[in-house]
């Protein structure tokens, strides 16, 4: 249980079987998984996973070399502290939509940071067509100020044609 934790970042061109190959290799090496995120971004498959066991950074890298090689992945390893079982529940959701242009994320996140908003989860996508790309972003996080204050802070973006909505997340526990 006291094995050190590492964050593995694995990226490669998407194809069926990457998750199976990687997790099988980890299992055979006797590693344990913590929280993970695995998703396709564009044509790439991206994996970020917390693992424990398997030795230090160098040992992990060496032991994962075969699967990294056969799956055509690139691997990055960082020692981390686990902090498992400490989930933070988001209280506010911000949704942003607009014609794709440089700086939307920077503008929105600057306003949120200024308002003391801690982003827990941000996912953004480019929808539409090549000729007419649309940027869509969903952010969930914890705000230290009331929702209307965030709403007010983001209002100027609306004048620039960006659709922004801010709503409270009331998590039901029962």
């Amino acid at each position: 249980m006291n094995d050190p934790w590492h964050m593995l970042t694995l990226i490669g061109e998407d194809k069926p079987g990457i998750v199976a190959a990687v997790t099988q290799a980890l299992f055979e090496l006797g590693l344990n998984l913590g929280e993970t995120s695995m998703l396709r971004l564009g044509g790439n498959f991206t994996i970020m996973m917390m693992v424990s066991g398997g030795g230090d950074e160098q040992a992990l890298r060496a032991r994962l070399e075969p699967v990294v090689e056969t799956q055509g992945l690139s691997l990055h390893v960082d020692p981390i502290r686990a902090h498992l079982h400490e989930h933070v529940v988001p209280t506010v959701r911000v949704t942003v939509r607009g014609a794709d242009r440089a700086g939307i994320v920077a503008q929105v996140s600057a306003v949120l940071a200024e308002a003391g908003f801690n982003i827990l989860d941000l996912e953004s996508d480019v929808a539409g067509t090549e000729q007419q790309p649309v940027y869509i972003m969903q952010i969930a996080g914890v705000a230290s100020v009331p929702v209307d204050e965030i709403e007010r802070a983001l209002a100027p973006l609306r004048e620039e044609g960006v659709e922004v909505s801010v709503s409270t997340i009331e998590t039901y526990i029962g």
Partner: protein
Amino acid sequence: MALLEILTLPDARLKQVSEPVTQFDDTLRAFVADLEETRRSGPAAVGIAAPQVGHFIRVVIIDCSVTRKPVPNHGHLILVNPEITHWEGYEAGREGCLSVPDYTGNVIRATRIRLMAKDPHGELLELDMEGYEARAAQHEIDHLDGMLFVDRVVSRRTDLFQRKVYQ
């Protein structure tokens, strides 16, 4: 009054279907008092269902009067043999559970429901609920049928939150 032990995942008993209550007596009301005390002792629990404490009878408690932002609600409710008779609309919302510690996820629930139930004295209740309270009732009634919210969690990448705009 007594604090009851809460069953947590992966306890297979959480999958058990609960039986309707037939006796509206002091034994039932004493159990409801214990269930309420247990709900209140939990971390921010809005509702609780009898099977969560290993009593497989159709009893739930919800109280949606204490949300951060006020929502339409009927206050503190003890629902015995609750049944949803009408559903309308759907929306995603975040849920967690006393029986599933340290995990929350998005679940699709009906926006508006009509519900029939008895109170602990056997009197008939008929309630129209919406939004958060309707979610609470659906989450708890699921427990009576051996269902957990994790059986219904949807991907966080499905853009269901925006659907309301188009309704």
